């Protein structure tokens, strides 16, 4: 992987906690990400990955801790902070009555992108949606919805992209396009947080990884550092590192309460 463009953090999460009905979903989480960096966010189900991403995206309110995007507090300077962000949810829900092209028109207006049409055409071509440009959102398959979500996120050339299980439902060509465009985006200086259970994908793309378990950070660093500190073997894969890390953390957390259920996700 090429090295990140800058070491200066563009997103800083400090001591962030989130509780649901009194139970911790995320527990005193601190991390940051620099421009051009791809951060792989991994953890078992209920680890707090989606809650963390949705809070950074401004979907969930922040009550404990602090999140800053280019210095803007996501709580106090919400609109300013969100200008730099793009969010790709794990199950994108396009507007039923808008065509693919109208989605891009709307996102261009939302992020005040001037002369967006040429970039929209490029993205439609890249994600093989040209033939579907006049299809309604409600008519798209799971994979097409995911591709449309990428196009909408990529359109304003965001400085930070939050991806939650981005490859779900994509065909092999779609997966290749998505991976290429994530790498290209990062090489242009965009910080990417990639949350996924596909550990091979994370190992392939991420500069650093952040492992969460039961809402707590159990490791943050490069895979080489993880091998040195967590793994039993020097050539351990990310899967082996993940298993060891979460088992150890599970042992140490035994007896503590399980992480809380996240807020409802709309089916």
């Amino acid at each position, binding site marked *: 992987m090429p090295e990140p463009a800058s070491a200066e953090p563009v997103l800083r999460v400090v001591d962030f906690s989130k509780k649901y*009905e009194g139970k911790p979903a995320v527990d005193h989480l601190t991390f940051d990400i620099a421009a051009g960096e791809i951060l792989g966010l991994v953890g078992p189900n209920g680890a707090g990955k989606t809650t963390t991403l*949705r809070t950074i*995206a*401004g*979907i*969930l*309110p922040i009550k404990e801790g602090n999140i800053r995007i280019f210095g803007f507090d996501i709580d106090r300077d*919400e*609109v*300013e902070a*969100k*200008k730099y*962000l793009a*969010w790709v*949810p794990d199950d994108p*829900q*396009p*507007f*039923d*009555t*808008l*065509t693919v092209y*109208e989605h891009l*028109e*709307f996102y261009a*207006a*939302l*992020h005040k992108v001037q002369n967006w049409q040429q970039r929209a055409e490029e993205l439609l071509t890249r994600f093989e949606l040209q033939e579907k440009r006049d299809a*309604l*959102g*409600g008519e798209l398959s799971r994979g097409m919805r995911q591709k449309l979500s990428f196009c909408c996120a990529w359109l304003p050339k965001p400085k930070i992209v939050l991806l939650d299980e981005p490859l779900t439902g994509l065909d092999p060509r779609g997966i290749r396009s998505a991976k290429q465009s994530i790498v290209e985006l990062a090489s242009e200086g965009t910080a990417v947080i990639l949350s996924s259970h596909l550990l091979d994908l994370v190992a392939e793309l991420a500069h650093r990884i952040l492992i969460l378990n039961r809402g707590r950070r159990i490791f943050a660093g490069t895979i080489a550092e993880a091998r040195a500190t967590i793994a039993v073997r020097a050539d351990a894969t990310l899967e082996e590192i993940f298993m060891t890390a979460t088992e150890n953390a599970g042992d140490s957390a035994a007896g503590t309460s399980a992480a809380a259920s996240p*807020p*409802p*996700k*709309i*089916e």
Partner: protein
Amino acid sequence: MITHPALALLTKRKLRGAFRKQIRRTKTAKGAAFAIIGLLVILLWYGSVILGQSFSRNYGSAPAPVDPQRAVLMAQFGFFSLLFINLISSLGHRGLYIPKDEIEVLFSAPVSRSAIIRYRLTINILKSMFGALLLSFFAMRRVPVPIFGFFGTFVAIQTLPIYGQLLSLLSGNAENKFFDRIPKGAVRAFTTIAVVAVIAAFALLFMPGRDFWDKIAQRITNEGGTGILQNQIVSYIMAPARPWAGMATAASAPEFFKWFSVSIGIWMLLFFVASRIPVDYRELSLETSADVAKRLQRVRRGGGGSGVFKLSPRVVGWRAPWIFGRGVFGALAWRKSMSMLRKARVALMVSITIIALCSIGVSFMILNRSPERMEPWFSGLASLLGCIYLSNFLRFDFREDLDKIDILKTYPAACWKIFVATLIPQTTLVTALLYGMLIIKGVITRTFHPAIPLFAAAIPIFTFIWIAVDNVIYLFAPTRAVAGQDTMLQNAGRAFVLLLLRMFILSITFAGAAIPVGIAVLIINIFAGIPESAGQLLYGAGFLVGLAFALLEAAVLAWAGGLALRRFDVASDRP
């Protein structure tokens, strides 16, 4: 209104998209036919309201003179009732309701929360326009100057969503700050009681042509100053509705414009306050949107009726008996029975209560008149109406299985058998409830007319016919019924066609039954000296022939249902 350019664009595009989707649906012959019929039905409905209004003004008898003070009070009470229902129901939508396809996009976008509120408020106001127009036309009848009544009602209805939204935001904020969580069951129970109370009060005051109701209405608003609505405290409570009442019942233009200015001022103030209120509604909105999305999904799957109810985890241990055997038919029917048992807990309780109350009511109506003469008529009518109501309310048919039809078609059974087995549990349940009604009535009235066994034999056949017609049409032209969505025209058209077909089939059934009974009557009249017992026997024979005819009709419908299921193409017919 909408100040953010992207949200204004979204509104325009969504509106255009809704039209486009409607037009795309009319590209098939079925879609076009149902849309045209639906459009005609809606136009005729509106047209009849407008023309009826104009006709009664121009050609009808002169309206009774309205006491101005009483008119204002009644209008104020009417508007206040609507406001109250709106406020109570808005407690169920905590925070700001945002549809599932918008919520994550809007919350993660660089758009302020007040801009989102303004956008949603505008959408809600636009959505309420259809109902506002209709109610405004209705309101023109009972006011001194119809046009003032129209605009007064229109402005009032268009202000209700803002009041409701303001309360949702404030109650959501209070819940965030002061209560961990208000039990939803308590809110629902309170809402139901309040809505029923207001509807009852409304009916009490406005039911026309009933001396009893008129007397009560007069007592509430009597001119002696002791009426409930003239009470000082009540008038303070109803004060928010005063400007609308003043506008709707104004007798002169200056009076109308005075109240109009006040009403518009209140509208603007409420809109401003609702959009500026410093409440973080995100978590509540996520919950509300998830709840509404689930409910809509159940409506889409269940097609209304009891399919809307949630699967109750408390009844997981309950098991339905294998009433129809252990074969393929029995297995299919058992699967449906289990669905009914586990989903329709609340619906069943409601149905049993309604049936019990109706039985008691019918029994006393029979007792107050001539039991021997009235009983068969009351029993027949109550069975008919009960069947129609219960078949629609306790609906467990192919709507519930729309997403599983490909699986159903793979079962090792003839399609007609699958069709019948799917509908038979609902038929049995409705029949059992109606039998219960006849038994309660028999116990209270202590009469048992010889016609009752004949009714009992007719009930399951008629119920099956009623349900089967609906399902045959549904399988030929399936729609996912969600009120207020883009299939409104098709749904209206489909409902109208269904009504006509049911009436047609019902008339054939009655004609088939009436002809032999008519022949029996003719024979009795010709041979006047025929003994009474022989006459009754002839009636009974005629009824049985009619029943046989109905059975034949049920068989034809079972065949048609099988055909519809066989030709159902899951690739194209599933909407």
